[in-house]
């Protein structure tokens, strides 16, 4: 007889209480129970990084963590990056540098990059490449992604700051990217 577990956690700043099966990964809980479908499922083996979220300040693969293990933790998902219609500087720079094509890897790259910049606001390019080594992209090529993160760092994204108020066109792209992350 398997007991469901009640998990009290904090997701994107909001306290959340949820009921899940112990066998459900954090990724499944986010996507299937909470409808936070920004985090993507790629490999389910910790190789691709598409499921990356930030747990207590560290990037982790949400496919390799049980939902039950989220109890008492602070979790940030890609949905927690933008502030309303205002994109996080990293999201903005990914758009400007065309750092995404199909976009399935993007939420993971954004979260790995955010975890890096939160710890180290002025990383070298080498440090950026190292921090992104656990994220795979099959379309874009890594240079554009790395350039976006270099640029975001240059624009002083310290710990969890957001970009400037967007222009109208940015707001449209914002809606676009938010839509895309939902899928």
């Amino acid at each position, binding site marked *: 007889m*398997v*007991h469901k*577990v009640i998990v009290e956690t904090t997701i994107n700043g909001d306290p959340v209480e949820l009921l899940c*099966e*112990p*066998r459900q*990964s954090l990724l499944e809980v986010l996507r299937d129970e909470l409808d936070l479908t920004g985090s993507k499922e790629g490999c*389910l*083996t*910790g*190789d691709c*990084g598409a499921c*990356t979220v930030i*747990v207590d300040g*560290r*990037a*982790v*693969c949400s*496919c*390799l*963590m*049980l939902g*039950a*293990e989220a*109890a008492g933790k602070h979790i940030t998902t890609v949905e927690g990056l933008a502030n309303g219609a205002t994109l996080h500087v990293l999201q903005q720079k990914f758009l400007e540098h065309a750092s995404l094509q199909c976009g399935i890897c993007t939420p993971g790259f954004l979260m*790995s990059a955010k*975890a890096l910049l939160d710890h180290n606001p002025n990383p070298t390019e080498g440090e950026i490449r*190292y*921090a992104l*080594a*656990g*994220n795979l992209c099959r379309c874009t090529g890594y240079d554009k992604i790395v350039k976006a993160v270099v640029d975001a760092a240059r624009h002083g994204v310290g710990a969890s700051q957001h970009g400037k108020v967007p222009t109208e066109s940015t707001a449209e792209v914002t809606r676009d990217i938010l839509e895309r992350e939902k899928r």
Partner: protein
Amino acid sequence: MHAINYESPKTIDEAVKLLAAHGEKARPLSGGTDLLIQLRAGTRRPDFVVDIKHIADLCKISFSAQHGLSLGAAVPCLEIHENPHLRRHYPGLTEAAHLIGSLQIQSRATVGGNLCNGSPAADTTPALIALGAMARIAGPGGERTVPVEGFCLSPGRTVLKPGELLVEFQIPAPAKYSSDAYLRFIPRNEMDIAVVGVGVALTLDPANDHVVAARIALGAVGPTPIFATQAVQALVGKKLDDAAIANAGTLAIAAATPIDDMRGTAEYRRHVVGVLTRRALAIAATRAKASA
């Protein structure tokens, strides 16, 4: 994934009781970076998963220059790598912890889990053996301590009996003029499983460069990590010159029992054991001299 029960005991006693009550049906959950994959693949099918990360003692690093290091079995690799004392006194161990998978993996994966998973290619195990680490185990019958080189029995199997829990590693205080190093060969820059891994620890006599103490351990070249005792015996008491280093490399090769697989042939692995042993000895020697 099949249905499981999740328990998160707060004390070692509680955890041991749970593990003992469910025997083979229970499996401790540390970082989960191996276990969750095994659960999904069905290669391990426990009914009870016992999360050990709520036990304070298992999540602790305590270091003193006098007493050495107690490293909780559930401390994540990234925390080990970021610890300034550990980086200074046990650079080989922190290096090994920082080589495992991506940062996402290092945020969760633990040295205790790496050992208990029982892979011959575990990166942190040769580093622990080189340091002379002892594994403290709690069980229904009380506690026991096992040297890390005696912990793994065969791929995926360890000395842990049903009901037993790896609690911490006890690592001796760094002697004067001592240091360690871990080197791993993989065919790419990052994110792969060792073709060969070599951990080395050395204590030198600064007056004449003689080896006071040494330990060498090999990974991925046998069914379990290997403690290369003959290579060590040949070094102790000798001056650490090129000839002594070359000889230790040759004896390390003799201790390896590799197989051919997709990562490399046995012959190639033997060659790499020699190369990495020589390099790791040179690095550890440089560090030992700089440590004073």
